[in-house]
């Protein structure tokens, strides 16, 4: 693997794409801007002093995609056939997710255009809202998908599970993850595997939050078989038999005899105490 923007002498240069065949290219990138809940509420109600924030940010993102070559030194000027910017406000997380998609029939990829569109849409959101919230934070900007071209299709979600696992939203909302570890080999994407979660007090007692168990290591393909396999993996799991520990398979309450199949999510937890 080499960097195409460097020539044989290691100097930066613009890649000559004249001889590359044209193909349909598409790329999506996304980013996130976090803000105070009140700011998001104002944004959604249209109550901000500068007016319609999302419409303005959308135009800014589209304009930016078209001018990427003026900003990024070695980018080609491209005749984009499509630029779309979508906003997904998330009230619970108090943020707005921005997704930009660019497309063209051409000789070079459009991921830089998608990334630029997301970045400038985020900056515009900041500019439009900064009168009421200066602490907003822009982040998580990345390419989600890229299709067409010689280097092949790319999808962020198709990366190895082991890389993705820490990105999964934490089960714990709040504090108290001290000492949490993952046990055993994570199953790779091609082998049948069960994802096990231990929640709340059980996670803290075991010191284990998540563990993957190969399906073929189970004596019987049910919850009882999984418990036995976990105990073989680590004696700490004998705690699964202490007191009242409940179990859910794919987020539905389950018993020892509940069958388990590939890709199931199994959670163990103590009796619930909400309300």
């Amino acid at each position, binding site marked *: 693997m080499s960097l195409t923007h460097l020539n044989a002498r290691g100097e930066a240069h613009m890649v000559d794409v004249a001889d590359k065949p044209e193909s349909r290219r598409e790329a999506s990138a996304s980013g996130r801007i976090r803000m105070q809940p009140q700011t998001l509420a104002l944004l959604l109600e249209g109550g901000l002093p500068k007016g319609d924030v999302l419409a303005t940010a959308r135009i800014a993102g589209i304009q930016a995609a078209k001018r990427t070559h003026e900003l990024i030194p070695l980018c080609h000027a491209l005749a984009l056939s499509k630029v779309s910017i979508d906003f997904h406000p998330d009230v619970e997380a108090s943020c707005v997710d921005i997704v930009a998609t660019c497309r063209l029939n051409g000789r070079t990829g459009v991921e830089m255009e998608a990334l630029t569109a997301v970045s400038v849409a985020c900056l515009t959101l900041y500019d439009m809202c900064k009168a009421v919230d200066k602490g907003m934070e822009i982040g998580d900007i990345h390419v989600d998908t890229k299709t067409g071209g010689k280097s092949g299709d790319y999808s962020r979600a198709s990366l190895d599970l082991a890389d993705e696992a820490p990105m999964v939203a934490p089960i714990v909302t709040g504090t108290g993850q001290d000492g949490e570890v993952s046990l055993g080999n994570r199953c790779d994407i091609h082998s049948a595997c069960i994802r096990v979660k231990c929640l709340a007090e059980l996670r803290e007692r075991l010191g284990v939050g998540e563990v993957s168990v190969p399906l073929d290591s189970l004596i019987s393909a049910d919850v009882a078989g999984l418990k036995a396999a976990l105990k073989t993996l680590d004696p700490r799991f004998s705690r699964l038999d202490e007191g009242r520990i409940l179990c859910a398979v794919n987020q539905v309450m389950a018993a020892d005899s509940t069958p388990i199949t590939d890709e199931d999510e199994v959670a163990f937890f103590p*009796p*619930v105490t909400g309300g």
Partner: protein
Amino acid sequence: MIRVQQAPFDVGTEQRRLLAGRSDIGAVVSFTGLVRDFNETPDVTALTLEHYPGMTESALEQIVMDAETRWSLEGVCVIHRVGRLAPSDPIVLVMVASAHRRAAFEACDYIMDYLKTRAPFWKKEHAAAGDYWVSERESDLIDARRWK
């Protein structure tokens, strides 16, 4: 409407939202649960609520659907907070609207009883004496059995 969130909620706002544009509702009953400064030990300084995203929402939806088959209801709002909360903070809101008061009173009571025994939330209390996970209460299980 069912929401699990870290942010506080406002009962007045939620009630206005539930009743907006409705003239067929004759009764609305709401229950708000608050953080106490004493529970299993005195001097509780904070509470951390953990949940199981995904299952929490579907468990609450099931409880509300069960209530809707039992009583004739015109609107239900359930909000449960997660994360770190301080004494006197609101934790949970159950608001039920119906044509007549009895259904609203009973369904609100029913939803709270099942929320406490079926929805995957766990409380950890931070007190002067240290941190501990709240244990399940026999009385909550007995309360939920009233509806069988």
